[in-house]
Each structure stands twice: as structure tokens, then as C-alpha cells.
């Protein structure tokens, strides 16, 4: 295989610590503890390597990245290296006093997540009282500063009907972008699938709301819409291809082709403390495993879409078929597509209680 093109973007998961406990969190079930986290100096070294390799954008994420007191220092360093800096935050630790140093450090953009538009259900999902008011306040001073703001809403059966009001909130707050992103069923989202999966009718209604708002608002508000692919015939493309554009570094320094890749069995996870980012990107078995199209089984191998969706999601194939190298069963051509249909048919009428995302709360022994 030829040397792969360098990654375009780095997801820097600074910590798994977070004051919220959303049951759809994309973090792994085995959360990294504080004692395992990379140091400031280690992150600085990573940012240098990333810029050197050709990464263009760095997304500071978590957990809640604001839980790291060195965040302004990391933003400043990234900005000085020409990296576009994005903060992905729940906003509950964002105050004027903590925002100012970030803006002065050269932060380019804030993505602020909301659990819902109504306070009651929002705080029931996030598990933190008073969170909604803090988020609204954070949105106001980011917009007042002039920094571009994206609101992120994760959609599930409990809030799908409120998409029109979420879009309205984004508009009135003065956000430049809004993401209406249906839950992705990996990690905690997979554990809570029966509690979160919307019905087909709810999905159609949410989609209609997005289309109406796009027609009404034009280019004044960019709406990014992510559907739950269980209802689709073709899978989502995997991050522009496994190990093609995107690299994720976990709080403890594992270098991954995606945030869910830690579920893949039988392969070792490269460690940024023991190898360079470029070496890992080019040579680590985890990155080579599903890069390109050579690994593909039928029906992907002979399919015209193989370089568009890259056979779908490896983590989903693993979760639903038990084989990360299988065609994503979301695809109607997959021999296992009936499993997805069966999951949707067997959704309970009454949602089970949430399994909250907390250290030590994962079923089956995650930390």
C-alpha cells in the first residue's frame, strides 16, 4: 500500500472527566481515569507533530475539555502552529472568566452541546441540575464576543419532536451553525439503544423540520443533519475512510482511527507515548487494518459505492455482526441486514431507564 495522505483533522480527547452523564456519550465504556491522562507537555508535543504532518484542524474534546486547566495553553500552542482550533464543550464550566483566556489564546470556534431545548428533559438526560442555564449563558457570551458558535443537539426518542424549537433556539441565540445529530449507536449509545432509538415516524418528522428550516432560513444558519442510519439502506461513510483523514487521541494517549475503535478486538492500540504520530498513522496495524478497499469482503469488494461509504462503519459491523471486517449490516446488501430490521421491530413501547455514562457504571465491567 502507498503511504497514506496525512490526516486533516485531530480529535484531541483531553479527558474523560465530565460533570454530565449523557446516556448517548460516544466515549468508550471503559473510561480513562485522571491518573492516566497525558500531560500538558505530551499534548504540546502531539500538536507539534500534528501540524508538522499536515493536520489542519484540531478539535479539543473529551469528556469535558474545560476540566483541563491547561486548555488555554494548548489552544495557544495549536493556534501558533497554524492549526484551526475548535472547542467541543458542554458549556457547564464555561463562564466569562474561563472563556476570556481561550479567546485570547486564539480559539477559532466553539461547538456547544445541548441535551434538549426544555430544561426539565435536558437536565434529566445530562444528569446535572442547573446545566441548561449555564449553557444558555455560555452561548450568549460566545456570540457577543463574535466567535462563531455551533449548537449541537443529539436527537433521540425523548426529544425528536422538539427539533423545530431547537432550530429556533439556535437562530435566536445567533449561532452560525447547528447540528441536529441523531444518536449514533456505539459506546454508551449502544448500551442505551432501546431507550434512545426514535420511531420511523419521529425520524421523518425531524427530517421534515430540518428541511423546512433550511428552506426558510437559507444561508443565515447552516444546519448539519445526521440521521440514525438504522433506518437507512446504505451506511454512513466512515470518516472519509478509515485512517484517511481523521485521527483521534484518547486521554490516555491511544491513537485511534475513530472514537469508537477501542472496541475492535485482537489488535493492539498504538500509544503516543511510545511512537511518533507519523509512524503510527502510516504503519500501526490498527490503522492499516481497514484502510482503503483491499480488506473488503463481498458485497463491498465489487460494489460501486466502496469508495463512497468505505463499507460503512467497522465499529457497527463489530457491534451488530460480531466481525469488524464485515459489511456494515445497515447496508441492505449485507447478508446480516435482517438483524437491523429485527432490532427496530423489537423496540419496546416503553423505553427502559437510562444507563448513565459514569465511571464504573458500564455493564460488563467497563471502568
Amino acid at each position, binding site marked *: 500500500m502507498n503511504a497514506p495522505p496525512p490526516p486533516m483533522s485531530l480529535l484531541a480527547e483531553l479527558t474523560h472527566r465530565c460533570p454530565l452523564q449523557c446516556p448517548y456519550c460516544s466515549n468508550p465504556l471503559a473510561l480513562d481515569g485522571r491518573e492516566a491522562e497525558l500531560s500538558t507537555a505530551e499534548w504540546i508535543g502531539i500538536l507539534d507533530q500534528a501540524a508538522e504532518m499536515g493536520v*489542519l*484542524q484540531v478539535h479539543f474534546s473529551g469528556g469535558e475539555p474545560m476540566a483541563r486547566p491547561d486548555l488555554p495553553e494548548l489552544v495557544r500552542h495549536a493556534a501558533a502552529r497554524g492549526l484551526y482550533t*475548535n472547542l467541543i464543550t458542554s458549556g457547564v464550566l464555561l463562564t466569562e472568566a474561563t472563556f476570556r483566556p481561550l479567546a485570547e489564546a486564539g480559539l*477559532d470556534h466553539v461547538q456547544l452541546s445541548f441535551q434538549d431545548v426544555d430544561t426539565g428533559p435536558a437536565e434529566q438526560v445530562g444528569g446535572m441540575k442547573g446545566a441548561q442555564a449555564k449553557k444558555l449563558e455560555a452561548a450568549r457570551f460566545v456570540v457577543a464576543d463574535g*466567535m*462563531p458558535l455551533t449548537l449541537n443537539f443529539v436527537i433521540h426518542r425523548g426529544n425528536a419532536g422538539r427539533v423545530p424549537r431547537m432550530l429556533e433556539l439556535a437562530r435566536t441565540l445567533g449561532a452560525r*451553525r447547528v447540528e441536529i445529530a441523531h444518536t449514533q449507536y456505539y459506546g454508551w449509545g449502544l448500551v442505551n439503544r432501546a431507550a434512545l432509538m426514535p420511531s420511523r415516524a419521529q425520524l421523518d418528522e425531524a427530517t421534515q423540520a430540518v428541511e423546512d428550516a433550511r428552506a426558510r432560513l*437559507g444561508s443565515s444558519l447552516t444546519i*448539519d443533519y445526521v440521521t440514525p442510519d438504522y433506518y437507512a439502506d446504505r451506511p454512513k461513510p466512515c470518516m472519509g475512510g478509515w485512517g484517511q483523514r481523521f485521527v483521534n487521541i484518547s486521554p490516555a494517549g491511544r491513537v485511534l482511527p475513530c472514537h469508537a475503535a477501542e472496541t475492535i478486538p485482537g489488535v493492539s492500540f498504538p500509544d503516543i507515548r511510545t511512537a511518533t504520530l507519523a509512524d503510527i498513522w502510516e504503519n500501526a496495524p490498527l490503522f492499516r487494518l481497514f484502510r482503503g478497499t483491499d480488506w473488503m469482503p463481498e458485497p463491498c469488494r465489487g460494489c460501486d459505492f466502496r469508495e463512497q461509504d468505505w463499507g460503512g462503519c467497522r465499529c457497527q459491523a463489530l457491534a451488530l455482526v460480531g466481525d469488524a471486517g464485515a459489511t456494515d449490516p445497515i447496508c441492505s446488501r449485507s447478508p446480516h441486514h435482517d438483524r437491523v430490521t429485527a432490532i427496530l421491530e423489537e423496540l419496546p413501547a416503553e423505553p427502559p431507564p437510562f444507563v448513565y455514562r459514569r465511571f464504573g457504571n458500564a455493564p460488563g465491567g467497563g471502568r
Partner: protein
Amino acid sequence: MTDVPTAAAAPTGPGLAEAAVVRFMRGVRLQHDRVRDQWVIQAPERAFVPDPIATAILRLVDGQRPVGAIIDLLAGQFDAPRAVIAHDVLAMIADLTARQVLIR
């Protein structure tokens, strides 16, 4: 961005539009990508490669120069009548404004 264009500020008419000053929106910039040897637009949640005409224009956007001065500079660089260049530049700036890259 949502302003309804008035007759006086019609986006394609010369006159006022050439006097206008455009700048990058906050959080958007043109940047040279040394590794891939190309210009990229860095914007919230995306980086994309502008076409050569957009690149030539954006390299001249400094938040001070009026659009007419950008047209003059490009007319000096490219072998085409000024009116043709003016038309292309005004259309491109309108497009980049609609795409939340530039703002008046």
C-alpha cells in the same frame, strides 16, 4: 447576511459594490497548507480548497481594500478586460458571502 439587497447595493451592479469593503468572517481564514502545497479555507468544522479564482481574490482580501481595488490588482495580473474581471470578482464575492466566508 440576511439583508435583502436594495437597488443601491445590488450585488452585481458596479457602483456601490466596488466601493464596498469585504473581510473574512470571524473564525474563517485563508491559509497556505505547506504539506499539500495548496491554499485552504479554514472555517468552523470544515476546511476546503477554493478554486483558483476564489484563491486569487481571497489573497487580496485584507479588510481594508475596497472591492474595486481588488479588481484593479487582478486586472493587472490577468490578461482580460477589466469589465470581465469585475463581473467575475463581484459574482465570486457574492458567492463567498453567501457561503459565510466573507462579510461586508
